[in-house]
């Protein structure tokens, strides 16, 4: 696939696949339950406990393997919900304008200025105890604070799109509003939606980990890297030298975020040929020995060396086919 030829996208995809693998098979591969006492407290990394044990004698490696699933499910589910919300609200606001725009924009603005973390902590404290463990509910609650940014971006894009000639042409030829939105406008927004989805997912991941870390949700069910960070902090793992206990989930969360960001950059370059061409050109220029940057208004001159092999047109054709 052409999109995978980009190094950023490729490394993002590989990293993300690694985490998906962890989420799918991690619990099966884990030697123990995350909260099973299987060793002495504060054991260092060893053959039987790769990442050592916790204060209570739980196996850190098992905790780590069990931690990916809920994070991935919640962040992606939350990303989907928030993106759908932002597309509906943003595109509707931009396309219909007027009172609808005023109302929807106001809504988006309110959610933008809400301090997300305290708001979510308050909401979570009102949930009945039994529901706190539901991943779907968790995702829905997080997406509540994640859609507004995307909605605003999509609204402004829609505002510029709906004044374009092809949208006018569709309207004059009698297409209905839903068709114009679905077939003329939204396909043009796909890059923005994709980027907004990835960043919302990233946001949801960070928020969920933060909520677990501060203990605003049930820290033990569903188990996640946030739970590990919570307990490592509560049991003073840093002071006890059990650095793997907080380093492993911390690094994992950071890498998951990195993979999403890399994917986003890759998509950006894929949809914006200017970014891609610039990258290609710099690399190519270096390859032929020009170190100067390609500035507008001074086209580089690259004369092939006198002894360079002259490529015949037939060979060029073979190369391109």
């Amino acid at each position, binding site marked *: 696939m052409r999109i995978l030829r980009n190094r950023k996208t490729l490394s993002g995809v590989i990293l993300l696949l690694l985490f998906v693998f962890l989420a799918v098979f991690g619990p099966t591969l884990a030697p123990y339950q995350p909260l099973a006492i299987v060793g002495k407290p504060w054991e260092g990394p060893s053959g039987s406990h790769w990442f050592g044990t916790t204060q209570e004698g739980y196996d850190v490696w098992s905790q780590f393997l069990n931690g990916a699933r809920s994070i991935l499910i919640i962040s992606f589910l939350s990303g989907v919900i928030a993106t759908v919300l932002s597309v509906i609200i943003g595109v509707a606001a931009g396309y219909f304008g007027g009172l609808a725009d005023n109302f929807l924009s106001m809504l988006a603005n309110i959610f933008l200025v809400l301090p997300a973390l305290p708001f979510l902590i308050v909401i979570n404290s009102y949930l009945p105890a039994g529901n706190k463990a539901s991943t779907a509910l968790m995702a829905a609650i997080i997406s509540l604070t994640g859609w507004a940014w995307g909605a605003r971006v999509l609204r402004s894009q829609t505002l510029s799109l709906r004044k374009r000639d092809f949208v006018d042409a569709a309207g004059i030829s009698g297409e209905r509003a839903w068709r114009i939105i679905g077939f003329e406008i939204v396909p043009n927004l796909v890059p923005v939606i994709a980027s907004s989805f990835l960043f919302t997912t990233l946001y949801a991941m960070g928020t969920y980990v933060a909520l677990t870390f501060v203990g605003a949700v049930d820290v033990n069910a569903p188990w996640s890297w946030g739970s590990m960070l919570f307990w490592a902090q509560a049991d003073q793992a840093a002071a006890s030298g059990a650095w793997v206990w907080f380093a492993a989930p911390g690094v994992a969360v950071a890498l998951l975020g990195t993979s999403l960001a890399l994917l986003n950059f890759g998509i950006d370059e894929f949809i914006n040929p200017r970014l891609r061409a*610039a990258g*290609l050109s710099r690399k190519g220029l270096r390859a032929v020995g020009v170190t100067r940057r390609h500035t507008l208004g*001074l*086209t580089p*001159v*690259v*004369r092939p060396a006198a002894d360079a092999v002259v490529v*015949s*047109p037939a060979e060029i054709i073979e190369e391109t086919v």
Partner: protein
Amino acid sequence: MNSPLELNDPVLEISGLSVDYGFGPDAVHAVADASLTLRSGEVLGLAGESGSGKSTLAYAVTRLLRDPGVITGGSAVFHGRDGAQDLFDLDAEEMRELRWSQISVVFQSAMNSLNPVFTIGVQLTDVLRAHRKDMGRAERKQRAAELLDMVGITADRLRSYPHELSGGMRQRVMIAMALALEPRVLIMDEPTTALDVVTQREILQELGELRERLGFAVLFITHDLSLLVELADSIAVMYAGRIVEHAPAEQLFRNPRHPYTEGLLGSFPALHGERRAMTGIPGSPPDLRSLPPGCPFHVRCGYAMDACSTDVPELLPIHWEPTEPRRAACLLHTDGFEAPESLKKTAEIGSTL
């Protein structure tokens, strides 16, 4: 101000120019081995269909080609006020000094380059303030009015904002601006394409008069061959990044030597003379990423021979009329081949078009 420059002295000698977009196997060879000489006082027309490389050639010569364009060979020697220099050896500062004062360019949508919040007068005098430091305020204004007058706009328009002018007027303002510092070479890339034919004609007439008065050379790029026949002294026709024919305008129009030129000329009707069927050129322009081997035109050419699919023809004087000041890149006119009658016409030139 100009150092003595005889009419017909070369001012811009492009030789062996090659331009690629991209590098290595992905590279698109947009211009291949193009050689042209622009003489002072001459209007050299560059014609060709979309994607034939005519604009790329002009941008490359002025080093204005955007990323990922790269000049991969050749030279462009400019005979300026301070002697001859190869434009491809200059650095950014030297290029900046040459541009506008000695080489200026008018682009197709140049009229959109006017800043909407300043009056025409401010924008015209701005360049004079930067480059003609000895000019006083009144002198600059005088000169700006003169420039406007040159392109047929009355001086009271100096106080107008760009939006108060029509497209044609704005384009004329840009031409006046390009001429403000009396350049030796004026490169015009489809300067009138966006305008209606009446305006086009006015602008071109003015351009012709200005050229005679000021003696600058014009490289005029267009896909409109009939326009060039009237305007240009000589015409170069490009196809697939190569110059396929270069001849004095009337010669090229009356007696085309390259089959592609003949095809182009057969694609538009003559206003006078007998009626003839419009033929057009079969096929479509080639994909520059995968040119056919041999002559790039042979797949669409009615006179194609076996040799055409293997040998790349060079731009050479016509074998059977070597003294004529014209060149064509076609095997039919090389030694050992017999050109068909239609490409051997030697009609009288000088009669009415």
